[in-house]
């Protein structure tokens, strides 16, 4: 039973000393401290440690008054300095201005992404020196020899080339 009481106290002691236990738990720990010697010893040990921390930690890093005064002097100079840059920064960093800035950045990114595509589109529209396409195909149906019938007459799309009327160009069909 004492073992259980001690374990219970040990678990709850820090919160008991810190004053953040529920009313029922606080009363229970208090009763165990009164009844059980080990619990009482644990309480005293814990309490002493907390007290020592409370007394020793504030002594850590005690400031040098002379140094604090020097810091104040430089702080005072900073405060007296005209806040032109900071005002500009504040205006620039205001919520509306930020939205505007983000808008500008997004626009710049969009242009940067679209620019290569636009350039590519225009370059595809530019005249390219393609091979001439046949304007019309006609087959001469006059009786000829088998080899002659396989001739396909191509007429180019350039009428009156060199002032001699439509230029006809005979191209022999592939030999099937």
């Amino acid at each position, binding site marked *: 039973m004492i073992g259980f009481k001690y374990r219970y106290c040990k678990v709850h002691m*820090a*919160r008991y000393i*810190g004053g*953040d236990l529920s009313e029922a738990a606080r009363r229970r720990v208090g009763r165990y401290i009164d009844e059980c010697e080990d619990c009482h010893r644990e309480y005293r040990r814990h309490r002493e*440690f*907390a007290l*020592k*921390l*409370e*007394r*020793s*930690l*504030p*002594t*850590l*890093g*005690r*400031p040098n008054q002379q*140094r*604090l005064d020097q*810091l*104040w002097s*430089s*702080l*005072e100079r*900073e*405060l007296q300095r005209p*806040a032109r840059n*900071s005002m500009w920064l504040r205006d620039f960093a205001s919520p509306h201005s930020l939205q505007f800035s983000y808008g500008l950045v997004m626009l710049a990114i969009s242009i940067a992404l679209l620019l290569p595509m636009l350039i590519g589109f225009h370059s595809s529209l530019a005249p390219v020196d393609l091979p001439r396409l046949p304007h019309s195909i006609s087959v001469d149906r006059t009786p000829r020899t088998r080899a002659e019938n396989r001739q396909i007459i191509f007429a180019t799309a350039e009428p009156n080339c060199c002032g001699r009327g439509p230029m006809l160009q005979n191209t022999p069909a592939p030999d099937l």
Partner: protein
Amino acid sequence: MIEDRRQSHAEIDAIIARAIAGDQVGYAELYDRYAAALYRLCYSLLMNEQDAEDILQESFLYAFKNLHRFDSGKASLKTWLYTIAVSRCRNTYRRKQFFTVDISQWLGLELKAPPAEAPEAALMRRDAEESISRALLDLSPRLREAIVLRYGQGMTYREISEVMGCPQKTAESRVRLGHQRLKQSLQPVGAGLLEELLRVR
């Protein structure tokens, strides 16, 4: 007690109003009131004099330039200043996550004993201070903050939760856990070290 606190709040509000109106003496009064405590807080969290001074200066500069934004209905000036300092300390130890050596500490320049202090007393004080600093540095940053605010600055759990930006229950459990860890890490060295630190001061 409550009356005293109310009076003190009214007094601080008056100083703030004067400072906002452009009275330089108002700023000086606020600095005198909080600089030492804020320095101790920064030093206890960072364990480095130079960093603590830098953070102190930055925090005051920010606070003074934004004093018009301070709302005494939401928090006390002390809590507001501590919040600013703690957030700057967090940035600093985030930047210094890698192992760094404080050259002044390395060369033994930091712990200067007062002239009247005997050499043995100075040595004991240094040992005690170092062991506490080590134990604090072994804690995680959040636990260290909770312990320093609770035991070093004597803040209530509510104030700690405001400064740390967490629920009050979380602040309580961080203090409890930090207390346990600190006790464990100081026990092997000897609990007498704390006593020593208190005795020689």
